[in-house]
């Protein structure tokens, strides 16, 4: 157990810190760009779904980034601890950070007299984690994080124009009063994480 904690600490320091910093910058920008005080229920959903969800891309897409450097991949392969176990550790703490960012943001909105509930937290988090899962999946299977970023950002842009076409996978449903899509987003994220790990384990380890 202590080994895994050590791995988490070292990864956090060397790999995740810049991405976490960027996610915090996005969270700060969200509060400046959107007003977060005195918003009603549907208005409160907007900053969470439409902007803070980008932190999912920033935190989850680069999970495989370090090993995309051939030298590091060779080194990691030679170690006793499974490479995918390290990626899983990174994924777990990144998801925790994502939840943490959404949690703090929702609490701040609540203090600013906005009408937010646990549903807002869950809904925003679901959009964020799905965007991140898309980036994670494509970065993982193509062994290239740039493709991961591209796919997730294009999907994000598509949500502004393809509301009806995206059906259960529409990211901004809470702003128009629907929550059912969020279950689909959460479930699909889990599926994308699992498939990415399976593909990498089978074909590219």
């Amino acid at each position, binding site marked *: 157990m202590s080994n895994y904690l050590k*791995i988490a600490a*070292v*990864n956090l320091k*060397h*790999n995740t*810190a*810049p991405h976490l910093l*960027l996610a915090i910058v996005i969270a700060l920008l969200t509060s400046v*760009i*959107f*007003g977060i*005080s*005195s*918003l009603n229920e549907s*208005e409160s959903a*907007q*900053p969470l779904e*439409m*902007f803070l969800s980008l932190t999912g891309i920033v935190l989850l897409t*680069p999970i495989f*980034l*370090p090993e*995309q*450097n*051939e030298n*590091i991949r060779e080194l*990691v392969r030679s170690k006793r601890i499974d490479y995918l176990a*390290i990626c899983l550790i990174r994924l777990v703490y990144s998801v925790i950070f994502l939840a943490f960012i959404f949690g703090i943001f929702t609490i701040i909105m609540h203090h600013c007299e906005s009408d937010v509930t646990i549903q807002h937290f869950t809904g925003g988090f679901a959009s964020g984690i799905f965007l991140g899962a898309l980036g994670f999946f494509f970065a993982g299977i*193509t062994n*290239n*994080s*740039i*493709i991961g*970023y*591209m*796919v997730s*950002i*294009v999907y994000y*842009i598509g949500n502004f*124009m*393809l509301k009806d*076409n995206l059906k259960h996978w529409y990211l901004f449903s809470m702003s128009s009063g629907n929550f059912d899509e969020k279950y689909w987003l959460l479930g699909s994220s889990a599926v994308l994480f699992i498939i990415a790990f399976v593909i990498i384990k089978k074909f590219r380890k």
Partner: protein
Amino acid sequence: MLFFKECKKIIFSLIFVIYCIVLSGFYFTQFSNDCQYPLEKPHEGQTDYGTISKEVPEIIMPSAIEGLVSEYLSGEFSAYPYGFYKCVKLKEKDKKKLVEIITELSGISAETLENFDNYEPSGYIMGEDGNPVYTNGNIPEINIPPMLTYDDFRELMRKADKIIGGGSKYSDENIVSNFSQIPKTYEDALAEYEQFCKDDKITGAYARLFCDYMGIDLSILPVFVAVFLAERDKKSRMEQLVYSRKISSAKLIFTRYISLVFTMLIPVFITALLAYAKVKNIYPDNELDKFAILKTAVYWLIPNIMASSAVGMFVTEITSGLISIFVQGTWWFASIFASSELTGSIRNFTFVMRHNSLLGYDIFQNELHTIVFNRLFFTIISVLVILLNAVIFEMKRRGVFNVKLFENRSRKSET
């Protein structure tokens, strides 16, 4: 030849395939979707011809002043400073400044505003029979001073907008569309349709719509392609190999840049041809300008591709691919959401130009000088950025510029 080698390298890369898929996806779901039926000619006797924003002082002044008083009494101002809704609550000192403006505009004294406690917003409420009923609301009586000119009114509204923080209903951009919507007459609608057929030759209007949709994508997608290729070279340590070659840095960087822009234009031109075919299909008997879509795509979209690619190449050269994507993403986001207007809001430095309408030929013509400046500006800036990229590349080659800002820390991973 290096140019063809670079083009081949790009065309056979995975990122270029994804770029083409995304671009064609955008074309089919957006533009193509809007070209199902021809624009209908207005007929006399229609119940509704739509509305039009016309700057009529007699309409704007009373309704905007009423809106300002109403928002002041409610204590909340709606604004879209960055394209997204923001509920603004003013501090005491700003409230005092705004009260002075309201008094000047409406003749309502500061005391009346202070002591008015029967405020009711206008809007629809549920009537006794269960149907919505419009109520006028309740605000103090407004008496616009006869000496107040329209110019003074606009100046005071500008000040009010500044106090609110910009992007409010009273800003120069929004005041006319918010407070002076008048119904179009049959003659207005017919004149617009005639313009669409004769001045625009139909394809001119569709060319703007095509570029409006494709411009959204082409202002961000090229950065991914540029970063992907730059990062791939770094990964395979091509730099070391290239450094030792005879070719000049300027020639190498410019050739790479031109091949990037050239290859990314290929799917744009293909979709432009498809767009023409689509328009021809729904207007088989009309006279069309065959090259309008292609011509507009050249001057409208090339600067977007150039700027986005230049950012991708340059920022990756001095920092990392991730920072490039962040920089371009922020620029794209700021440009897209800077204006709430989808038509008629092109400024000198608007990166993503919008004109999401088949009508509005005259609006576009009025903006033409701005558009020419705008597109030339981004073209020149892109070339300058690439020139700077070549200089830095040369310095690195000579070992002068070896500091890499924000270098990917993963290289130092201890895992």
